């Protein structure tokens, strides 16, 4: 009885499958990634029109624990169709282990892909000449958040150079307040904010993008004077007394998502807890609700200050990159769609969206907020001019980029400027 039931089921599914024919109607495609919360909603929304058109049902499930789960899934063979990694390095790693299908096999027009997303981004997902990573949304990191009204009220000018920023900071300290918000606690990734600072400084000192690229591959050692100089500039921010609200204790203890809260909170004299917060374009989604409403107006950004004026301007950013685990027809269709200029449209229109398309042809008028239009244009321009650089710690081997680099930055914050040499030497030792 049971057996015949099962058989009927089997036959039914077979017949139904056969009737479907060449159409992809009803095919399911699964994607996992680290995007959760509102980013997840936006990413899902991107597929609504696609599903209507093609009938392919795309499900995305984000997880806080994504990086571990995808490793286990790759071992178990029970993989989704796509994984959306926050680091290109992970895509390369998976490709080297033979887990991924190349974009060539997915029948993607490689030339168009390179034109649309820049050869630099495409290169990050390339292994032995084959392209495995699909670029997706990006964020911009070379920005400092501030409140123009607070600056104006006290006659502070937006600093364009590092020296001007330090002068302003000294001024604020002299006025009895704290210039910077700085919090780099992040569960399992504590320290990344300091590595971001280092990277921004690296892009603006030494030989700019050239020395930056050498640094990423360890051709330029951490103990090189250029890197040492960057570390001491960072230490100047972290360790000068009264620069950071709450001092080094706040730096290591404050969850990065809360780090800017002092800016929105006034003390008894009506002064904000801090005036400047260097953090990526996604940070507004962590702000208190009241502050989120004023993003781009009450609280907006100025570019990370210039340090060496002889260098061309560069932008630091990060973003997601997907890899595909098979070459089913539905997978191909989804891959092609994710690389199109239309892909990010639905998410961009959502009121709280903070993710920016890395497609240089993306229609920026689709963004729901002015600030995203500005930031999105900066990314697109930088990509076109080969001045965009990806977060170095995401490109370094995980032992360094997600290990010793982060850890030693935490130690540096606690120990003070005397620890710079030890920190950099330790990172070099850990390079595999």
């Amino acid at each position, binding site marked *: 009885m049971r057996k015949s039931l099962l058989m009927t089921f089997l036959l039914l599914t077979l017949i139904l499958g056969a009737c479907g024919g060449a159409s992809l109607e009803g095919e399911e495609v*699964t994607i996992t990634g680290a995007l959760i*919360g509102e980013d997840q909603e936006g990413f899902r929304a991107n597929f609504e029109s696609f599903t209507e058109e093609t009938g392919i049902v795309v499900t995305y*499930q984000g997880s806080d624990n994504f990086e571990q789960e995808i490793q286990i899934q790759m*071992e*178990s063979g*029970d993989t989704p169709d796509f994984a959306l990694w926050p680091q290109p390095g992970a895509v390369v790693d998976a490709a080297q282990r033979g887990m991924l299908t190349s974009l060539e096999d997915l029948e993607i027009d490689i030339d168009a892909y390179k034109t649309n997303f820049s050869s630099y981004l495409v290169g990050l997902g390339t292994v032995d000449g084959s392209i495995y990573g699909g670029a997706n949304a990006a964020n911009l990191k070379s920005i400092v958040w501030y409140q123009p009204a607070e600056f104006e009220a006290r006659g502070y000018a937006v600093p364009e150079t590092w020296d001007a920023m330090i002068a302003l900071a000294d001024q604020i300290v002299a006025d009895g307040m704290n210039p910077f918000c700085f919090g780099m606690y992040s569960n399992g990734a504590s320290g990344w904010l300091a590595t971001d600072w280092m990277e921004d400084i690296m892009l603006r000192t030494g030989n700019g993008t050239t020395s930056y690229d050498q640094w990423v591959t360890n051709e330029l050692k951490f103990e090189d004077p250029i890197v040492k100089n960057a570390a001491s500039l960072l230490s100047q921010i972290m360790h000068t007394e009264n620069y950071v609200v709450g001092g080094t204790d706040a730096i290591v203890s404050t969850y990065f*998502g809360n780090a800017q809260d002092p800016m929105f909170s006034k003390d008894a004299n009506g002064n904000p807890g801090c005036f400047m917060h260097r953090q990526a374009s996604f940070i507004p989604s962590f702000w*208190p609700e009241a502050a989120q409403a004023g993003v781009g107006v009450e609280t907006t950004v100025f570019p990370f200050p210039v340090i060496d004026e002889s260098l061309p301007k560069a932008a630091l950013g990060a973003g997601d990159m997907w890899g595909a685990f098979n070459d089913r027809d539905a997978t191909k269709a989804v891959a092609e769609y994710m690389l199109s200029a239309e892909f990010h449209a639905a998410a961009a229109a959502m009121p709280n969206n903070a993710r920016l398309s890395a497609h240089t042809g993306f229609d920026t008028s689709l963004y729901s907020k002015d600030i995203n239009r500005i930031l999105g244009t900066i990314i697109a321009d930088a990509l076109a001019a080969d001045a965009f650089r990806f977060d170095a710690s995401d490109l370094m081997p995980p032992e360094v980029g997600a290990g010793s680099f982060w850890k030693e930055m935490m130690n540096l914050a606690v120990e003070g400027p005397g620890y710079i040499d030890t920190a950099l030497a330790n990172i070099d030792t850990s390079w595999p």
Partner: protein
Amino acid sequence: MTRNNQKWYDKPTTKLILITIAITWMFPLFGFLLSSFRPGESIKRTSWWDAIYTGTIWSELSFDNYVEVFRAENLDRSFYNSLAVTIPSTIIPITIAAFAAYAFAFMEFKGKDILFLFVVGSMIIPLQMSLIPLVQLFKDGIEIAGIPIIPALDLNGTFVATWFAHTGFGLPLATFLLRDFMMGLPKSVIESAKIDGASHFTTFFKLVLPLSVAGIAAFGTFQFLWVYNDFLVANVFLGIYKPENLVVTSHMSQIVVGRFGEAWHLRTSGAVISIIVPLAVFFGLQRFFIRGLIGGAVKG
């Protein structure tokens, strides 16, 4: 066993120390539970003790946070999934362990000591050590010199994978505890059954099983709580990228940790919801639980 009821040492200091300990133990829960009923903005603006002190807290309390958490997609489905994982994962190891415990307690056979040592020894193998080999086993099976011992079953992502995993991980403790419990049963009863000519199978079902209910319930509660509260095994073997496979803990961990660094109103209410079922089970079966443990761990 029974001592006279009049306790000569029941003193106020004893009570005082105990009350202090009890308050210390409940204290962490108190502020947390209270905050689960407060609006998110209030939690951040005023500490809960200040809110009590100024009296503003009473007007703030509401079930809104719980409603918000429950509105999260398909929480009921996650709950059914949790039950589908937990109930077989509790019953299967108990069944297997009860038989083994009976044999270890009442039967004589060659290699008994070594086999029992094997069971007890495996109690200490950390389950993390097994995860990766097991996902590979469920996918590819085992081959020794080209001969398939276990075929490629492709079990990852199914309930049955979690049942097997929890059974394997729970068996050593279950066998150990139940054997200890059964050894505490009066030997004369079992021997009289033997004289009557009853087979071991009959003795097990008719005599030992009913007598061991307390021990079985104790381990059952223990295993139930463990499996229900687990999120590592469920995430690994069920795969959370299929939303229809989420269990309550992994669903809650998405709400509780998530990207809501400061969303204490969701964290607190989410955590409270996730501990309601285990608490209910615990208080419901507490009597068994504690009685069973007595049988298991106390023999001199």
